[in-house]
């Protein structure tokens, strides 16, 4: 009985609270020799009250709510996966359930090492779902000094988004994706029109709201030309 009452309370909480919003931050610091560091941050802090309520429930809107253990295991899996990739070292992760911020960071020898992280996963996904995502995400051409973030939009994203119920879609309305690439060399140009180049010419900043990304209106693809 008490459990049911708590469930009602929490559900009411979850409904009345503001829409959940989250940020994803992708930061890469690239050195002249092609090595560097990468930091990926999932920040759900803005919706922490809602998340804390949801986390106490078993399921919301028919979706199972992951437990803290589930999240920790998923992050651990990601960490283990990274450890297996040659050229990736110094893997660090942080888990903060107080503010709901999760990060994972690593050093890489070559930009192509980063690709290896997702290559397997993307190729498998393409085969299974007949999608056409590029399996190389990052590249760095040392001879021309160009750094590229690749991304090919696939209609599958839109389709799976529209398959979600209205309430579930709202999750993405206030979400954003930010990438910051920092370089030792100076930036000459960046191809993505939404990208901003820092006044010191050493960083490229790109912030896109999740909806534009999902609907294919904007892309994270960017080619940055560095001085030689």
């Amino acid at each position: 009985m008490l459990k049911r009452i708590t469930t009602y309370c929490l559900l009411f909480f979850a409904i009345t609270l503001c829409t959940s919003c989250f940020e994803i931050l992708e930061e890469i610091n690239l050195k002249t020799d092609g090595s560097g560091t990468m930091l990926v941050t999932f920040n759900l802090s803005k919706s922490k009250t809602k998340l804390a309520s949801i986390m106490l429930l078993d399921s919301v809107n028919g979706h199972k709510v992951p437990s803290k253990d589930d999240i920790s295991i998923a992050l651990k899996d990601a960490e283990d996966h990274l450890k297996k990739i040659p050229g990736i070292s110094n893997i660090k992760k942080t888990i903060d359930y107080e503010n709901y911020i999760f990060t994972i960071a690593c050093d890489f020898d070559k930009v192509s090492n980063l690709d290896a992280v997702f290559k397997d996963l993307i190729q498998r996904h393409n085969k299974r779902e007949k999608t056409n995502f590029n399996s190389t995400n990052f590249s760095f051409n040392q001879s021309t000094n160009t750094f590229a973030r690749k991304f090919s939009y696939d209609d599958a994203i839109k389709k799976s988004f529209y398959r979600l119920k209205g309430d579930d879609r709202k999750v993405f309305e206030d979400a954003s994706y930010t990438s910051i690439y920092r370089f030792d060399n100076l930036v000459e140009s960046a191809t993505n029109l939404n990208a901003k180049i820092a006044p010191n010419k050493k960083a490229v900043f790109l912030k896109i709201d999740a909806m534009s990304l999902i609907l294919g209106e904007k892309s994270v693809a960017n080619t940055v030309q560095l001085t030689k």
Partner: protein
Amino acid sequence: MKKVLLFTTLCFATLVVSAQDLITKIPKDASIVASIKGKNITDLVSTSEFENSKMGKMMMEKLSMKTDGVVTNFETLGINLSENFYYFMQIKDGVDTHSFLIPLKDKRGFFSLLSESEKERVEYEDDLAYLVDKYDNTITMWNNNTMLITSTDKEDSYDDYYGYNDYYDDYSVVEDAVEEAKTIYPVMDFYETTYNFGTIKEGDIVEHTFNFTNTGNSPLIISDAKASCGCTVPSFSMEEIASGATGSISVKFDSSHKSGSQNKTVTITANTENGVEKLYIKGYVSEDGIAEAVIEDIEVEEIEETVIESTEYAQDSYYNDDYYTKREAERKARDAKREAERKELFVDIIANAKTTLKADYVNGSILKNPSYLKSIGSGKDEATLWVSDFMGIYKNMFSSILGSGYYGDSPYDIFNAGALYDGMTLTSKLNFEEDKASLKASYTMNNEMAKYNRQMYNGKMNKNFFKYFNEDEIEGYFSFNMSTEGMLEAYPKMVETMFDGVEKEHLDDLVPIGTRLFSLILDEEAIAKIVRGDMLLVMTGLETKEVEYTTYEYDENYVSTEVVKTKEETVPNFLFMVTSEEKEIFERLMRIGIKEGGVFFENGIYNVDVPDAPFMLSMVFKDDVLVIGNSAKEIMAINNGTIKGNVSGKHKKIISNNSSSLYVNGKKSVRDIPSDVLPREIESKLNYFVDNVEDAYLTVGKMKGNTMEAEMIINKPEDKGHKNSLAYFFNMINALID
């Protein structure tokens, strides 16, 4: 299934007990009966009003498109919306049959909904027409004024074995079944049709019994038997003789005033193919009883034996060592068997549909079922639902889901559930009144179950609860009124009853030992002092609080720094009240909490930091009530006595007189919920909803006799131009579609 959907859609728009109400077509033994009263509904919202509503227009557009413009309004659908619609479920030999009865005005309307290929498959017989859908074991049968859709939940191995494609669009099974169904009659197979009594003396009375077996494929009903002479008296039973069962007809012959050769005929009227069957008795009556003539040979009727080809070994003659040949033969045999089973099923489906449509029931219709009549009566409800014999339905459900379990065939082998659940019926009535819509459900249980329920739900509601909240400000409440003491006493007894007489694993001996130990160890009264069993949860309103969150700021060179910002969040407040006489235990627990950390005593109230919860809990023990809430402000006000309770008699009654209630102050909560959290589709219509939502409540009453009643009421707002509660629903839906 498509048709079932169509039916449901139509019901929406629909529907007077008239001379030929379809209810007579529902058998007396139906387990579930649901009805929708066409006229009651069309009186509230007329067909044309519905057709002109947005929902009606949308529906008509779809129907029109589907039928290439044949159906443009309800009139052309051919459905008689002023008659009653029914659904019923029957369970026979573990198979559920679901039937829908739809009154027709003009069968052509419905016919036009069929596709060309479906039209070709329609079978005609006398004034009946029907269509069998083999994929979902559904038959649609109609005559001039009624349409029947029956669907059987027969599980078969058809789909999960071998190729579905082999049979795709092959309706030969159905066609065969249709042919066979036309020949579906009971057959009176007599051991002899003629009895020769030899030579008797005038005045003797001879009696003979003719035995027979019903070798046909449907139940036999004898309606009459007459003899060619008053001297011969046949006697028979009117009871139904099942297919395969035996019966008898005895014939008494009085030879008074008779002499010489006698030939008497007995004519039986029954539901066999010919409708009449004949029996003969003959013999010789002499003054002295001595035979004068040689009696004719007894007629021997030869029965032609049907040779059934054994499909199982049909391929044996071709058998060779080739493994595949053998497998192929096995597969064919299985297919043939499956085919035969399916044919049998369709024959049954067609025969049952005919029985229903003709209302050809030996035991009469549901109107002869006292339980149904008592529960449903002739109320003016727009829709009713009656479920009888829960046990039967449960049992059937369990055996089909679980199959044979560890303990045997079904859980009912280990539980004596019947002691508690036998004789349980559910009645539900939907009413659209002028100012409110109500849905009532009442459970009637057997004496045993009622006894325990009375014990559990005889709790009292604490009047002090009403001091701590203001009715006008709340979003809603949930009350629960149980007797902890009664429950702790009744529960072990219920378990004992469940296992009473269950010999398996000596459960009937072991269980009582366990339950008595339970009762011995627990001091029901003492526990009831801690938690009496009455509780009330009130959503007291929304409060805006400032909440911190982390985000990032970037300098001009895009170096990020973590910053903490604040935002406003609307948090719903709640109060949870429980009656308890053990203030001491509570305070002791709190003192431990303070020592251990996590509990803070401040201004006379206890604040508890609940791990993982998005809020802090505040508590206070006031009089005999433990009040818990998430707003320290409210709890403090309760403690200081500065809160002004304001609860009307209406709500006091709802909370106190029911074992459970749920109230939603729709008016207030629609206004309070921040608009950005609502689904986008509703956001723009918020004003309409704020203006047009009243309130709703759900109550579960206390036990009255053996009945427990639950009721849901949705109130219609005043002065908003809604004609009645049904029109109100339609208007709300219209607003949503817009």
